[in-house]
């Protein structure tokens, strides 16, 4: 069981060596999952629309998450402790900028720099001491304090991570609150062992409401009509994505093609309708 978690095997800068970095960055399954989680994290960041922002990517690795940020039209700066991972990112010519840094030593940026911060599958590494002089509690606090300072007022930080147990997520949340953040955990698909994803959403300044996690039932709350309820549920599959062939699915495909700069027909009232049988 325990060996399934790479953070148990040793420090991240040694675990993600050349071979592991190459493996990680060329595995299409990992790439797809990372992209999906980054998209959700960006959604939770709730950046103002139509503005390109400056984003900090903590534990950016080979820049898999950064590519999603670039596609969304933002500029990013990534920090990671594994040099081989960052070298892979340079090889892949990511458009963000990279820094070799241990997040447990703090974020090395001046106050108010970033419009938001994301971190995909990195925070759990901070909960382990890999040397006798490392204290996870202190390192977490130091990280959150410096992160709080480096964010612009009103900005959010979203961390996707894999907590080992509830004590661990509690420790992380506790240290974040100590550093001045408000917020908490947003759990998508809490009842599914496979699709379950934990996001720590941290907010600076002013009381804000924590966004809701996605669940199997989301999107079908206020449908009064029984006939329509089945329709509404059918248009979304278990992961909350529109099911194949539905109008929402077609729209998302079109949006994607548009972003890639392809020539896409505008939708009409006939889009996604079944042909009438004569």
């Amino acid at each position, binding site marked *: 069981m325990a060996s399934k978690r790479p953070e148990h095997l040793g420090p991240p800068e040694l675990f993600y060596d050349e071979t592991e970095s190459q493996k990680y960055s060329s595995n299409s399954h990992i790439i797809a999952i990372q992209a999906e989680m980054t998209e959700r994290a960006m959604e939770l960041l709730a950046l103002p629309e139509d503005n390109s922002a400056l984003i900090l990517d903590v534990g950016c690795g080979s820049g898999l998450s950064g590519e999603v940020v670039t596609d969304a039209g933002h500029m990013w*700066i990534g920090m990671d402790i594994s040099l081989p991972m960052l070298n892979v990112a340079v090889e892949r010519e990511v458009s963000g900028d990279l*820094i*070799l*840094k241990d997040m447990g*030593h*703090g974020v090395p940026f*001046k106050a108010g720099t970033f419009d938001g911060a994301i971190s995909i599958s990195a925070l759990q590494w901070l909960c382990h001491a890999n040397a006798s*002089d490392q204290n996870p509690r202190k390192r977490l606090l130091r990280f959150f304090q*410096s992160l709080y300072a480096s964010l612009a007022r009103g900005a959010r930080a979203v961390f996707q991570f894999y907590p080992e147990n509830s004590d661990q997520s509690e420790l992380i949340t506790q240290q974040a609150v100590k550093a001045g953040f408000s917020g908490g955990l947003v759990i998508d698909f809490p009842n599914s062992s496979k699709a379950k994803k934990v996001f720590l959403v941290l907010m600076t300044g002013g009381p804000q409401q924590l966004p809701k996690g996605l669940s199997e039932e989301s999107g079908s709350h206020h449908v009064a009509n029984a006939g329509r309820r089945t329709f509404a549920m059918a248009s979304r599959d278990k992961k909350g994505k529109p099911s194949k062939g539905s109008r929402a699915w077609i729209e998302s495909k079109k949006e994607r093609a548009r972003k890639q700069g392809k020539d896409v027909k505008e939708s009409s009232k006939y889009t996604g309708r079944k042909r009438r049988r004569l």
Partner: protein
Amino acid sequence: MKLLTHNFLSSKFLKGVTTGYPLLLVATQKEVKEHEFNADFVKRMLPKVDYTACRTAAESIGEAEGLPTEVGDMWEENEDFLRKLHRVLLEVEVTEGELQCPESGRKFPIKNGIPNMLANEDEVE
């Protein structure tokens, strides 16, 4: 490393350093990579960027040509200025060189375009 990143970097995380800004920049190798010009982004960044530090850094690597000593009043409309700033902030990259903390003198090497900001546990607070 882009100069935009340099403009935001600080060595304040070191023990005994109070501001740690701006870091002194030495480049032994640089590169100009094309980056899509986005006027809105440059406009949004300029108020955050310390222009004097940016110009000094650009000067130290010989890329300050055409950059005025001070930001004029009408900079938002001045596309020529925005393009020059865009070039300096986002296109010029230092691939080999070093950064130095202005207070403690601690050096951070830049290799393959990546500044190494690692420190020992006893160097940080």
